C-alpha cells in the first residue's frame, strides 16, 4: 500500500469517525493480552471499562466529525451513528456489569468472555455504520459469531449450549439468506453500495432487486426477532446466560434497526429509501402481527425470563412500526429519532430488567412469577426497580418507555397509518396485562414458602440496577436530554 493511499484513507476525520471501532478492536486485543501475560489478570475489568470509555469518548467526539462516507465508501458516519454507538456501548456495559460474579464454573474464561463481548460491539458499530452490503455483512458476522459463543458460554450446561447452537443454526441460515439476497440485489443494481442504490429509482423495483431485498429484510427480521422469524427468541433467550440475553435483547436489536434505517435512507446523503415503497403496509402489518405474537406469547408465560423474551418480540414489533412509517413520514428523520429514543430507553429498561433477573437467578435458580411473590417486603429497592422497569416497558409515563412509544406512534400517525397505530396502542394494553402480573406478584401477593432463597449482595449489580432505574425515570421526566442531542 502506498503512503498516498494511506493518507487518503485515514484522514483525521476518518480516524475520528472510526474511533469507536478502533478502540473496541484494540481493547479486545489488550484484554486478550492481559489474559496471556503473567500477572496482568487483574487488569481485565479496568481494561474493559477503559475500552468502553474510550469508544464512548470517540463516539461523543464523533458528533463533531463531518457526516459522510469514509474509507472509500465502506463506512458512513453521521450524528445518528454516534448516538447508536453510545447505545451499543451502554448495552454492553450494562450486560458486563450484571455479568460480574454471575459465572461460576466458567469464571476462568472471563477474559475470553470480555474479548467476545468487545468484538461483538465492534460488529454492532460496523453494522450501524455500514455503507455497503459487504461492510454490513462483515459487521453482522463480527456481531454474531461472538454472540453464538456467548449464548453457549456456560458450556457445562446443556440448555446454554443448546441455546448457542440454536442461535448459531438460525443465525447461519439468516446469514446465508442475507448473502443470497445481497447477491441478487447486486445482480440487479450492479453495485453493493447502498448510497449508489438509493438513487437508482425504478431499478430497485425490478423482480431481481425485489427478491433480493425481500431476502435481506427477512434476514434482518431474524436478527431483530420479528414475526415470523421470532420463534427462536424465547428458546435462545432462556438458555443463554442472562447477562448475554440482556445484551442480545438490546444491543443486537439496536444494530439491526440501525441498518434497517440505513436501508430506509435515513443515514444516507440522498435520504431516499432503498427499499421499495410498496412494502410500507406489508411491513406495517408485520409489525402489528409481531406485537400480537409477542404479547400473546408473553401473556401465558410463568418463567420471567421467557416472558421478557416474548415481550422483546413485542417491542421489536413496535419499533418496526416506525420503520414501516418511514416511507411516508413527513419528518425526514422521524423514524431515526423515534427509534434512537426508543432504544435508549429500552437499553436501560430491558437491560435493567434482564440484569436484575441475572442477579436474582444467581442464587435461587430460575425466576418465575411465583418466586417473585412478596419481593417488595423482602427487598423493597429491588422490587421498586423491577416495578419501574415493568411500567416503563409498558409505556406508562413519566418513564422513558412512554416517550419511546409516543414517538413511534407519532411516526405512524404522520405517515397516515392510523389504523395500525390504533391496533398497536391497543396491543400495549395486552402487554400491561403481563407486566402488571409481575408487579402484582411483587407487591400484592404474600410470599410463598417454596421460594425464600435470598439474594446475595453484589455491588456491581446493585449500582447498575440503580443507575438503570434512575435513567429510566430521568428519561421520562426530561426527554429533552436525548431528544435535543438527536435534533
Amino acid at each position, binding site marked *: 500500500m502506498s503512503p498516498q493511499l494511506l493518507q487518503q484513507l485515514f484522514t483525521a476525520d476518518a480516524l475520528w469517525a472510526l474511533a469507536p471501532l478502533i478502540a473496541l478492536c484494540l481493547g479486545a486485543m489488550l484484554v486478550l493480552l492481559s489474559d496471556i501475560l503473567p500477572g496482568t489478570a487483574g487488569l481485565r475489568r479496568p481494561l474493559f471499562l477503559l475500552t468502553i470509555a474510550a469508544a464512548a469518548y470517540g463516539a461523543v467526539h464523533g458528533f463533531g466529525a463531518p457526516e459522510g462516507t469514509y474509507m472509500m465508501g465502506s463506512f458512513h458516519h453521521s450524528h445518528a451513528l454516534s448516538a447508536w454507538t453510545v447505545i451499543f456501548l451502554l448495552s454492553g456495559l450494562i450486560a458486563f456489569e450484571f455479568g460480574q460474579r454471575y459465572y461460576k464454573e466458567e469464571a476462568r474464561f472471563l477474559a475470553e468472555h470480555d474479548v467476545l463481548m468487545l468484538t461483538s460491539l465492534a460488529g454492532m458499530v460496523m453494522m450501524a455504520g455500514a455503507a455497503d452490503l459487504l461492510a454490513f455483512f462483515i459487521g453482522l458476522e463480527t456481531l454474531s459469531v461472538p454472540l453464538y459463543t456467548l449464548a453457549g458460554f456456560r458450556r457445562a450446561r446443556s440448555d446454554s449450549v443448546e441455546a448457542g447452537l440454536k442461535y448459531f443454526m438460525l443465525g447461519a441460515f439468516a446469514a446465508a439468506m442475507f448473502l443470497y439476497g445481497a447477491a441478487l440485489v447486486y445482480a440487479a443494481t450492479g453495485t453493493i453500495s447502498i448510497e449508489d442504490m438509493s438513487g437508482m429509482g425504478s431499478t430497485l423495483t425490478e423482480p431481481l432487486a425485489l427478491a433480493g431485498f425481500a431476502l435481506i429484510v427477512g434476514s434482518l427480521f431474524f436478527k431483530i426477532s420479528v414475526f415470523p422469524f421470532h420463534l427462536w427468541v424465547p428458546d435462545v433467550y432462556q438458555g443463554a446466560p442472562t447477562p448475554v440475553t440482556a445484551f442480545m435483547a438490546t444491543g443486537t436489536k439496536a444494530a439491526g434497526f440501525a441498518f434497517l434505517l440505513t436501508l430506509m435512507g435515513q443515514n444516507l446523503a440522498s435520504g431516499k429509501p432503498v427499499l421499495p415503497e410498496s412494502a410500507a403496509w406489508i411491513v406495517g402489518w408485520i409489525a402489528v402481527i409481531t406485537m400480537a405474537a409477542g404479547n400473546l406469547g408473553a401473556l401465558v408465560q410463568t418463567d420471567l425470563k421467557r416472558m421478557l423474551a416474548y415481550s422483546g418480540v413485542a417491542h421489536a414489533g413496535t419499533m418496526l412500526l416506525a420503520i414501516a412509517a418511514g416511507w411516508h*413520514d*413527513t*419528518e*425526514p*428523520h*422521524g423514524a431515526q*429519532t*423515534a427509534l434512537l429514543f426508543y432504544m435508549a430507553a429500552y437499553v436501560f429498561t430491558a437491560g435493567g430488567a434482564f440484569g436484575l433477573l441475572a442477579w436474582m437467578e444467581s442464587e435461587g435458580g430460575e425466576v418465575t412469577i411465583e418466586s417473585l411473590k412478596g419481593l417488595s417486603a423482602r427487598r423493597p429497592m429491588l422490587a421498586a426497580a423491577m416495578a419501574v422497569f415493568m*411500567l416503563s416497558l409498558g409505556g*406508562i*409515563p*413519566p418513564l422513558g418507555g*412512554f416517550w419511546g412509544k*409516543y*414517538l413511534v*406512534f*407519532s411516526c405512524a*400517525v*404522520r405517515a397516515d397509518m*392510523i389504523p395500525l*397505530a*390504533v391496533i398497536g*396502542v*391497543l396491543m*400495549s*394494553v395486552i402487554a*400491561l*396485562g403481563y407486566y*402488571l402480573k409481575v*408487579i*402484582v406478584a411483587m*407487591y*400484592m*401477593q404474600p410470599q410463598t414458602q417454596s421460594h425464600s432463597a435470598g439474594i446475595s449482595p453484589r455491588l456491581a449489580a446493585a449500582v447498575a440496577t440503580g443507575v438503570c432505574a434512575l435513567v429510566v425515570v430521568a428519561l421520562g421526566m*426530561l*426527554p*429533552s436530554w436525548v*431528544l*435535543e442531542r438527536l*435534533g
Partner: protein
Amino acid sequence: MDSLTLLVFLPLLGALVVAFTPREAVALQRGITLATLLAVCFIGLQVCLDFDGSSAAYQHVVDIPWFALPSGGGSSVPVHFRLGIDGLSVLMIGLTALLGPIVMLSTWGHITTRVKEFMVWLLIMQSGMLGVFLALDLVLFYVFWEITLVPLYFMLGIWGGERRLYATIKFFLYTLAGSLVMMVGVILLIYQLKTADVAKLTEYASSLDSTRQTWIFWAFALAFLIKVPAMPFHTWLPDAHTEAPTSGSVILAGVLLKMGTYGLLRFCIAMFPAAAIQAAPIMMVLGAAGIVYGAFLAMAQFDVKRLVACSSVSHLGYVLMGLFAFTQAGLRGGVLQMVNHGLSTGLLFLLIGMIYERRHTRMLDQYGGIASVMPLFALFFTLAVLSSVGLPGLNGFVGEYLILLGSFQSQPWIAGVAVTGVIFGAIYLLMATRKLLYGPLVHAENKRLSDLNLREVGLMVPIVVLCFWIGFAPNTFLSRTDASIDALVKRMQETRVALAAGAHAPSTAALPTEPDRR
C-alpha cells in the same frame, strides 16, 4: 415558586420525603403526609379564592418550556410545562385540594399495614390529579392523565378487599385502553395543528376538516367516557369501588371520575364544538341511560358500598347530560354537579368506611337500627343521602335542577326520561338508609358499635359545611365559572348557527398562518 407549580410538586416532594423515612416511623409518615396535604389544600383554596370569576381567560398561568417533539417537515412542536386555571377547572382544583387532607385523615382507621407506601402513593396521586386539572398543554395533560392510573392501581391492589387483584387489573386495563386510543388522538391533533398549547388548540381545532374533527373527538371521548364512566363502559367501576380501601374509593368517586367529565368539557366540547354538537344526542342518551340504568343497578345491590358505586354511574349520567345540553343552565349544573358528586359520594364512602372498620361487613342485611347506637353516624349518613338525592337546601338539588332545566331546553325527551332517575335515586338511597339505620336492631354485634370519634367527625365537617353552602348560596361557586361557561355557550351557539348554515368548517379562527414553531 408560584402557587400552581407548588400545587403539583409539593405533594411529590412530600412523597420523596416520606419515602426516605424509616419503615417503622408510621407517625412521622402520617404527619408529613398530612402536613403536605394541608399545605396543598391551603394553597389550592387560596388560588381558587384569588380566581377572578369575571374573566374567561386562563389565570395564574405558569409557562416553562419542557422539550420539543419532532412533528413533520423538520419542524418541532414545543411542549411546555404550562399550568393555569379557568372557570372550567377552578372548582375541580378546590375540590381536589380540599379532599386531600380529608382522605388522609380517613386513613387512620383502615390503613394499618405498609403505611409508608400508602402515603407515598397518596401524595403522588394528589400531584397527578391536580396536574390533570391544571395542565394547559395537551402532552402534559396526557402525561398526568396516565400517571394517575398507577397510584390508584397500587392502592387498590395492596390495600383492597378480597377480589382486589381482579378489580385492580380490570380498572387499569380498562381505563388504559381508553387513554391509549386518546394518545393516538393527541398525536394526530398535535401533528395537524403543530402546537400542544391547549388555548391555541382550542382556537384552531375547529379549522380541521369535519371528518377529522369527528374522529379525534371520539378518540378523546372514548377515554373520557370510560373514565366517567358512562353507561356501556361502566363495568369496572363497581368492582373497583367495592374492592378499594375507603380512601381509594373517596379519591375515585371524589376526584378521579371527574377527570372524565372535566376532559369531556375541556377537550371534547371546547375544542370540537361542531363534532360535539353532532355527538350531543348520543352523549345525552348515554347520560340518561346511565342515570336510569345506574339507579336500577343500585337498587339490586345488597352491598352498601357497591350500591353507592352504582349510584355514581347514575349521578355522573346527570353531569354528562348537563354538559352536552350546551345551555348555560346545563353547563353550570354539570360543573357544579361534578363538585356535588365529589362531596356527597365522597362523604358516603367515608361513612361506609367508618362503619366497615367497626363491623367488617357492608351487607345491608347485617345492619338495621344502628341509628340508636350511633346517632352521630346516622345524622351524617342521612345528610349525605339527602344531599345525594337532591333535597332542596342541599347541594345536590341545585346541580340536578340546573341540569334538568338545561337539558329540557335542548332535548326535552331525553330529559324527560332522566327525570325518572331522580325518583329512582330517592327510592334506592332512602331504602338503603332505612335498612341501615332504622328499624329494629336485630344483630347483637351492632349493639356494641361505638359512635364516631372526634377525628371522624372533624374530617367530615368541611364537606357538610360545603354541602349546605352550595345548597343555600350556589352563586359563591357558580360566579367563578360563569365567565368561562358563558364564553363556551356563546361559541356553541355560533357553531350551531354555522352548522345550520351549512358552512361546517371555519367557525372562529382560520388555521394559523404562523404555526408555533421553534
